[in-house]
């Protein structure tokens, strides 16, 4: 597992490659939460485009971070191509809350467009 946490404007980008299990999720969670101390970050993008496998720990990781940004009126987007990962997201009911996007640009457009709508 390999991961990267980057902030850009008011978006926190969490990219995870390889296999996301409970052990890996712990490491990502720690870094993501310390980045989220910055209150100007309100949106989340999970880049799972290079994720080969995710178990239910991924659900906990997504939901936990989503709860942190929800009071900031933030939005969450997931970049995901892997069928098995999609199956788990769907089974857990996460598609009622967020959508999957095929690349970063699509996810970014969704977040920035939505936030403009909110400020009008």
């Amino acid at each position: 597992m390999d991961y990267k946490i980057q902030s850009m404007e008011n978006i926190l980008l969490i990219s995870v490659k390889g296999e996301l299990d409970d052990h890996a999720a712990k490491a990502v969670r720690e870094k993501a939460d310390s980045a989220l101390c910055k209150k100007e970050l309100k949106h989340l993008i999970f880049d799972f485009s290079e994720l080969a496998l995710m178990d239910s720990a991924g659900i906990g990781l997504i939901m936990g971070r989503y709860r942190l940004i929800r009071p900031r009126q933030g939005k969450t987007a997931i970049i995901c191509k892997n069928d098995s990962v999609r199956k788990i997201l769907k089974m857990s009911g996460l598609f009622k809350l967020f959508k999957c996007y095929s690349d970063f640009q699509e996810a970014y457009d969704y977040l920035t467009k939505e936030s403009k709508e909110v400020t009008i």
Partner: protein
Amino acid sequence: MNNYMTIRFKSLPENETLARSCIASFILPMNPTLSELADVKTSVSEAVTNCVIHGYEGKEGTIELTAIIEDDMLTLKISDEGKGIPDIEQAKEPLYTSKPELERSGMGFTIMESFMDSISIISSPSCGTTIIMTKRMAAAPQVSQCACQ
């Protein structure tokens, strides 16, 4: 083809990766599709993680993984000698977790049930937990399952 293996390892979170790679190599001769391989690896990941987190609660213990191949049939057995499950029906409910503070989602058993053909849970508070799962691997080319989306 007929084959079996048993591995025993310490209840370390790092060994979740070990269990997944062992099972992936072991079932390779069954010619699993990418999706079957992901289903089996994910189910093993769920069961082993449960032993580490719930069975032993971070304490030291031994986890045993047995895999049996009989023709196109895979049987997996994952056991711990940890604290056991007091109420199995409740444990199987989607979203039920006894450890919400650890950001568990309670989806482990639901994922195992849907990714494997069958699952049985044998557990008691004094003797630990054993999970037995089976899956028939369709080595022959299959009709695409995308239509149900």
